[in-house]
């Protein structure tokens, strides 16, 4: 099938592709629509990846600007969201790696925008697991944040896309430029790591099953 026909068929099915084709044709209003419809998802995902809202917004903005700058190269291939999150993945990975190279200096103590690992108050560090039934929701959020930050950057991206964008393995593979098998392995290691990091909180809503082993070692 000719590319033109393929594009037309995809555009028929995915309204966002139609919108992006308008952006490609230099329609700025279409770009504004695109930003409007994806801003919540993109800022949300970026926030889960980097942990700070201001940085998440900067990254999401850069994703949109890259979309606009590369609009003329856009060719509809799969879902539009897949293409968008491919750009987001590249930017987020770079941002997380950059941060690793730089010392983590908080901008200000108790920065309310901060919930990531470079925040002044590290809820997860040197913790003694508090009594599970008494963990407050915000404390739990900090612990979960810490567990997520302990994943390596690719595991984190895969988990976030899987959890919050509800992407299947094949789509994550497309976004991250990996094979589906590699994504399966990546997610498995990530989920095992999360289980270990969070095991003290897993059964806080009730007692663990009777047959739970006393010491569940890491795999």
């Amino acid at each position: 099938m000719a590319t033109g026909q393929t594009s037309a068929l995809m555009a028929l099915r995915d309204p966002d592709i139609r919108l992006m084709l308008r952006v490609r044709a230099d329609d700025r209003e279409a770009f504004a629509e695109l930003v409007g419809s994806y801003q919540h998802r993109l800022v949300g995902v970026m926030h889960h990846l980097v942990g700070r809202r201001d940085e998440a917004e900067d990254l999401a903005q850069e994703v949109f600007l890259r979309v606009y700058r590369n609009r003329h190269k856009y060719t509809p291939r799969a879902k539009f969201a897949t293409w968008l999150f491919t750009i987001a993945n590249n930017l987020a990975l770079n941002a997380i790696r950059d941060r690793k190279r730089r010392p983590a200096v908080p901008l200000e103590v108790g920065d309310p925008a901060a919930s990531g690992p470079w925040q002044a108050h590290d809820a997860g560090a040197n913790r003694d697991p508090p009594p599970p039934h008494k963990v407050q929701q915000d404390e739990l959020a900090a612990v979960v944040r810490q567990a997520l930050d302990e994943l390596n950057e690719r595991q984190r991206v895969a988990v976030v896309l899987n959890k919050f964008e509800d992407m299947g393995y094949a789509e994550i593979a497309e976004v991250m430029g990996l094979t589906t098998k590699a994504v399966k392995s990546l997610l498995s290691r990530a989920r095992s790591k999360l289980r270990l990091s969070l095991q003290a909180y897993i059964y806080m809503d009730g007692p663990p099953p009777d047959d739970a082993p006393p010491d569940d070692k890491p795999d």
Partner: protein
Amino acid sequence: MPEPGEPPGDDDLTAYLDGELEGAAARAVEAQLANDAAARRRAEGLKKAFDLLDYLPKAEPSADFATRTVTSLQPAPAARPTPAETPAVTRAESPRRRALALAGWAVAAGVALGVGAAARLLSPPAAGRAEVGPEDQANDYRLLGRLSLYVGVEDLDFVKALDATDLFEPEMAAEGPPAPPDADAGAAPSDKLNELFRGYPAARRQQLRKLDQDWHDLPAAEQARLRPVLENYAVWLDRLPDGERREVLASPAAARPGAVAQLVQKRWREGLPKSARDKLAGTVGADERLELVREWKAGERARRDEWHAARRQWPTLFGQDRQAPWPFSEPGMAARIDEYVRAVLKVDLATPLAPRADLPAAARLTRAEFVNLRAAHESATKDRNWFVYGVAVYRLAQQHPYLPEPQPGKPTVVGAATLPADLPPRVLRTLPKGVEGAARGKWPEFALEVARRCVAERVAVPEAFGPCRPADFCEPVREFATAVLLPRLTDAERDALKKLEGKWPDYPLKLVALARLPKYDLAVPTVTLPGAPSLWAKFYGSTPPKE
């Protein structure tokens, strides 16, 4: 996946929890979970840990995120303002109207765009620039609402000339009903538009006032027809590079439609794929080039028409619960259309056709048309793709118009043996061999071919060629003509029809044309598709032709 007999690892366990395992691999995990308590604990731990991610705070973008993002774009060459700044005056729903909103702003952007210069270019000479009287604020208020429509337009004649070129023909409004007349006129004009208008030379202001008054005085239907032309022209003009825009605006008013047409053609050629441009460059002579362009444009038009038709039928094509579109949604209509195919197109979709076998002589379709129609019919009956079948039938009905058959027992002219004896032999001799062969056996094709030769040979077409009075028609048409159509006709229409009695094919052609008039909108039984012609055109037709 583990070897047979080996317990599944965490990879498979996680994939299973994510619904990504199927078949044997999924069954292996299920078996392990059923038999292995440790595996169950691990699975539960994996799931609960994943569920804890729901405790992460969800960040919402700041209220100004979208605006900041859009405004941070590099300014375009045309320095268009961002949509966030788009004034209410041109805010509208459809993409075309949104594009127009931007085009309107192109005007406001002024000299940087070269459109500011347009105001001067479009102004009459200085001699005519005397300011006339106090300005009518109310009318100006209305005018400002439409200012973006009037870019590069001097008067209504120019709009009509543009309309005649078919260059900016209206797109079908799939997103919603067309804008009502004066849709732009009620909105509050922005200060910027007001300022822009006041900055025009007095003569241009006066010219715009007259244009707006003429526009305002147009009948609503005329406004609705011309509005897309104006809108599309404004958007097209806005998207032109500055140099070309100036060129268009600087051309004299009388020559401007021609200049616009030339530029549209030029940009169309430049927009062709390289292979097409090479093919065009390789043509020998203007005729061959023209023929190629005509062929491509016809193809473009056909694709656009299909697209428009598909847009109109969107819910039936892709809706959650695909309903059969009209007319298949109405009881009995599918059967009546099948009957039309059998009785008028003269093909039997139910009977298989052997490879290489010819269609019966009476069949009015080519083999390729028949195969396509049968495939569409099969797709409709098996997969509910009624739209595709509707398009196929409608297109064939247009390509193979039919004429009423005579009363039973009277022969139809379908070959040399059935021609009236008094027809001069020279008429038949001049019939081109290929045409005669293709039409032979088919009503009314053969008779029409011979009738054309009669006209060319200045021989009167004998009455016996076909029915040309109500009483001559087969029963369904006679009944329709006498009981349905004739009583509704105006005296003038009835007289015009009466004058054609005895003339074939003029009389039946006129009868069918009268029935199809929008005010009657009638199907002629056993001749045209069942159901109102306007509905066929609406659901399956191409871009509506101009009246």
